[in-house]
């Protein structure tokens, strides 16, 4: 199935998403911030990137912008637990920077899998 890179600074969330995706047969790699994620992207090809927004080292919006520039074909889902006012505060800019889908934390498994399926369905 698809190769998916997941970036989040919260290890529990990383592992949870990994489990959810692996259950439906995807190959999953993990990174704990944008910098690590970009390094991983250099080493192998991915079909989908799932990234958190608020992270140390390199935050999500910046990461999305860079990824979009370097890998125009890579699909992106942004996830966020919220900003100052609203969970979607950082998600709208993420969409602007090029994320195809946005998901608010906390999300239900179905939400995530639906979004993944939608983006990868065409392949």
């Amino acid at each position: 199935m698809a190769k998916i890179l997941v970036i989040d600074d919260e290890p529990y969330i990383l592992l949870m998403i990994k489990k959810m995706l692996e259950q439906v047969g995807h190959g999953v790699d993990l990174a704990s911030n944008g910098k690590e994620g970009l390094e991983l992207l250099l080493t192998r090809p991915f079909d989908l990137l799932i990234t958190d927004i608020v992270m140390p080292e390199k935050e999500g919006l910046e990461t999305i912008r860079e990824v979009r520039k370097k890998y125009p074909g890579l699909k992106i889902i942004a996830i966020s637990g919220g900003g100052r006012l609203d969970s979607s505060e950082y998600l709208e800019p993420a969409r602007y920077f090029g994320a195809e889908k946005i998901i608010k934390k906390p999300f239900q498994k179905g939400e995530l899998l639906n979004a993944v399926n939608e983006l990868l369905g065409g392949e």
Partner: protein
Amino acid sequence: MKLTKSEILTFLGIRNPAQKELSVHPVTLRFTGEMEHFEKDFLDDYFKRIIGPFRFSLLLAIIFYGSFAALDAIVIPELKYQFWFIRFVLVIPVILVLYILSYSRFIKNYLQPLVSVAMYLTGLGIIAMIIYASRIVERDTYYAGLILILIFGYAFTRIRFIYATLAGWLIVGTYEAAAIWLTQTPTEQLYNNNFFFISANIIGMFICYLMELSARRDYVMRHLLEEEQDKVKAANEMLEHRVQERTAQLTRTNRALKKEIEMRKHYEQEQAKLEAQLLQLQKIETIGTLAGGIAHDFNNILTPILGYTEMAMEELDEESTLRYDIEQINHAAIRGKDLVQQILTFSRQVEVEKKPLYLQEVIQEIMNLVKASFPSNIEIKMDLDPHCGTVLADTTQIHQVIMNLCTNAYHAMIDRGGILHVRLTEKEVDAEKAAAVPNLEKGNYVLVTISDTGHGMDHATMNRIFEPFFTKKEVGVGSGLGLSVVHGIVKSYKGAIEVESQPGKGSTFRIYLPRHGKGPSDLFTDKEVLEKGKETILFVDDEEEITYMGKKMLENLGYRVNIQTDTRKAVAEFEANHDKYDLLVTDQTMPHMLGTDMARQFRQIRPDLKVIIITGYSNSISSEMLEKEKIDELVLKPIKLSEFSKVIRRVLDKDNTAVM
């Protein structure tokens, strides 16, 4: 004769060293030197003063001169007709003429010389008698009459010294001439008489001199006194003038001051508006940052809980109890998610709405949030006085203030841990305390104390902490607006902040907020079964606390409630919207209007309106009155909510016709 005035006065014993010295000619006694200008005035004045006594002395002179006619008849009967002729035809008519002339307006300038002449004339009369008598009797006895005339002239007539002296010596001189050339007076007799005459003359002169001097001194003193009085009067007038001027000035200043105060008020209002706008922005920033931060962390925590429980549930049999348990966890996580959304929504409420708040509830709520976000090395202590009264404030702003201070405490203790202590008490501020804390005034306050055991502040920092954009935190930690926002909010509530801090020993912030109402009463108490409804109620009570609680409770039961604390406003509201209301709930004793009177007035518009009266004393309203006013129910304070809800239901469900 060259005596100085002071010597004369001292010698005569009438000089008072404290008095102004008289400047007079030693012989004529006319005013000289600096007092020369007094002379004319003095003479006018003297005339006015002596004219009465002078007239009296003339009458007295006529009586004396006439009464001696008896002596003539006894001592020298042979010559009595000649003597009587002298007395009654020559002398007395002259004196009488002088008396009459004294009433004339023109006599004033000539009075003194005329008196002098009259005195001499009377003397001349006696001398004539002495000459006649000397032809018949050896001894001269009438010379004593001359002495009487001298004394009388000098002492009684008020003639001036100079004129009296002139007349006196003329009389003596004339007698000498007559005695030497016209009579054969023995030498011894002449000596004898001269001794008496001269002595009498000198004594008379003294008396006359003293009298005139005394009159002049009186005049000068009076004049000086008048001058002083004039001066005092002038000073008074000046003072009055000055007072008037100052008053006018004060009025002007007052007016200017009033204007300035108005302008300042205006500016203050403008400033308050701007501050409110700034606060709005700061609020979005501050609360947003804090609540958002908490929300973010919560969401991150909730995400795996939600995800894993879901996955676990999928793997478990529908019937298994474990699946049921996990489902509960999953539901709880979903509830948590909703709660976080609520917090975020709440933090966006930017409208400031001041209402009476019990801070114990608000602080409890905030501290629950704080506890959730503080690390475990910070211990949180709370002492909230449950009887603390209300403050008039906006919940969001109170959140902002306390959150801000707690966040600061957190930053102060994050490295080494410590204790955050939050206290809520009531505090009466006296004049002494008010003077010690800036912006604090005398009165009753609700005091929120937030203290930490963190790194504290030095004096210089403490002085600047309320300035916007002043921060000791690292860049990126807090906006730098925090404490200035706190300050602005507290100030807008007419409250004050007191800060105590020592480097290394922690900081204490005391927030004084004016107490608005008393502590929670047990007005609505129990938790029994409540009866609900959807009708609209007008709730009137002059105690704001009761109306607010009433509103809260009745709205929880589903009713629509309009509360009024002012009877006049309540009447206006009812008149405008009387169709809306199903029930009037009103206190009985209120300013301006009794509850029963209000009910009667409302019933004139809406005869079917239901009425419940609340009262603290059962005897403030009689059952006859209830009957008469057709009050549906009477409820006594304190109210049990369950009972109150039943009463309301009962009244609303009553048949209208039964009330009518």
